[in-house]
């Protein structure tokens, strides 16, 4: 009965959804095309991570299941390289430091430029987007000498944050610029100033609370970028998560822990960026 009703209703709903300017026959063909495309691309995108997940759950014998590889993440230690867990810690700490420095560097500067020195904004934008056109590998070549100087003072891999901030600039800038563009900075700050607020409290108590979402977006993008960074850490001989995974793959190509850690890292980045895209969309819907 239900089937009959729904069958009877189909033409009407389909009719209603047909955009003007397109015949329904063509529309049906288009829908077939769309679902074929979605299925094929969906498979292409989902299969590699799934394969990695399956491989990470491989038991001692082929075709069996086991969670050993996932348990190993906490304790794995390859020969001649630092323990896996320390590399994970370093990557997470780097993410926190990079986020903090990026925000401290960008947010006040962007607000200040918006309020007081508009004429510099084009140059500022150019500088922020410049890292997109200078490949990380080029940056490393030039950074070598500079990092050699820094290394005289400290050998910690955490020093990588100096350059990670540069890598994060374009993404953080875009996220923050979108947030700043959505609020009337001038009016807000003039209101606050005329009530006697200092520039500092204009920024921290008036403008920043109004761009929370943009700041969150900048943080998520920066975190995802730092956790996925390989080139610079590897070539400056520091051991972050990605460089460690690479070393493990060179020593023991079939180590199960390789695939469990890689899957975990991938999932983590996925979750971060999904939060980002859904949080961003919800806000736009409300505004």
């Amino acid at each position, binding site marked *: 009965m239900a089937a009959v009703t729904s069958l009877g209703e189909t033409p009407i709903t389909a009719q209603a*959804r047909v955009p003007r300017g397109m015949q329904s026959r063509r529309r049906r063909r288009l829908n077939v095309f769309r679902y074929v495309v979605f299925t094929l691309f969906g498979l292409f995108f989902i299969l590699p991570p799934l*394969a990695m997940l399956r491989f990470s759950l491989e038991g001692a014998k082929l075709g069996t299941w086991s969670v050993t590889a996932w348990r190993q993440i906490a304790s794995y230690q390859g020969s001649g390289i630092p323990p896996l867990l320390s590399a994970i810690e370093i990557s997470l700490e780097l993410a926190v430091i990079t986020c903090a420095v990026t925000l401290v560097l960008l947010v006040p500067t962007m607000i200040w430029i918006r309020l007081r*020195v508009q004429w510099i904004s084009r140059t500022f934008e150019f500088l922020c987007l410049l890292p997109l056109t200078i*490949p990380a*590998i*080029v940056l490393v070549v030039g950074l070598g000498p500079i990092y050699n100087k820094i290394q005289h003072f400290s050998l910690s891999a955490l020093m990588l944050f100096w350059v990670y901030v540069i890598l994060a600039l374009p993404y953080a800038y875009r996220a923050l610029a979108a947030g700043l563009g959505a609020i009337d900075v*001038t*009016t807000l700050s003039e209101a606050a100033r005329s009530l006697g607020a200092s520039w500092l409290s204009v920024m921290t108590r008036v403008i920043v609370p109004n761009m929370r979402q943009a700041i969150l977006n900048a943080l998520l993008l920066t975190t995802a970028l730092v956790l996925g960074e390989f080139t610079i850490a590897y*070539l400056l001989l520091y051991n972050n998560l990605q460089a460690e995974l690479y070393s493990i793959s060179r020593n023991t190509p079939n180590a199960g822990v390789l695939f469990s850690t890689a899957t975990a890292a991938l999932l983590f980045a996925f979750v971060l960026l999904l939060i980002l895209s859904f949080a961003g969309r919800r806000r736009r819907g409300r505004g």
Partner: protein
Amino acid sequence: MAAAATTETGARPSRAGRRRSIPAVAGTFPFLGYVAVFLLWPTGIVVVDALKNPNGSWAVSNITELGNPLVRGYFIGSFKLCLLTSVLGAVLGAVLAYAVASGNPDGVVRKLYLSASGVLAQNGGVTLAFAFLVLVGPVGLLFHASWFYQFPWGIGLIYTYFQVPLMVLVFLPAIDGLKVQWREASESLGASAWQYWRYVGGPLLAPAFLGATLLLFANALSAFATIEAWENQIAYVVPQQISTALSSEVGLSNVNVADLLALGMVITVAIVMTAYALLQRRAARWLR
């Protein structure tokens, strides 16, 4: 009226109250200093060192070494890979973008694919090479591709994985910009679907498509982690050779090889990105 008055009175005292001793632009100095030290200085070092001999004397003629067969080989390798993956990524991405754009603008499928594209376009790196290795590599779960370790094909497939989503992100706004009225107008004049795409849709999208392809090209050119994790014994592309040159001293005798290759990359990316910016401007004329 009231708002305008507030703006006037609010703006004037702040401007008048500005002290001349510390100009407002000083507020941007920390940022400018940071960028100068960690972005402009390194880039400057690359340019300067590329034009110097290892002993420190100037040798602008080094630039001609970019035509050296050895150096040229790496650039040809890079261009092959970038061309393959940018064209493949652009075509497939455009098809996917069209499929996404022609659906319900508030539908679940569109949201899902847009969010996923945002994630996957960022998703290069070491882990991606591992994922494809276990999927189609020598011990692959899906099948064993004999060409997995052949130069442009295996790695080209892997690069396509992040090039297609990037294309969707960049190209979707252009397709969304096609107005229904244009299609209606051409159909009411008796145009077939082919004629519509040949004479209306295609020419409108062409600059945006070319621009996006260039962006994908630059994206593939700078990628290093994935290809290094895929195969680190043989250097196929410029970034790999830069890595090799940084860790060893083999290669051209009188040249800072890493710096020279890096300079070559900067020049290439600059050309590609300039062309991209010009095409984007051209595309924006109709599609807004």
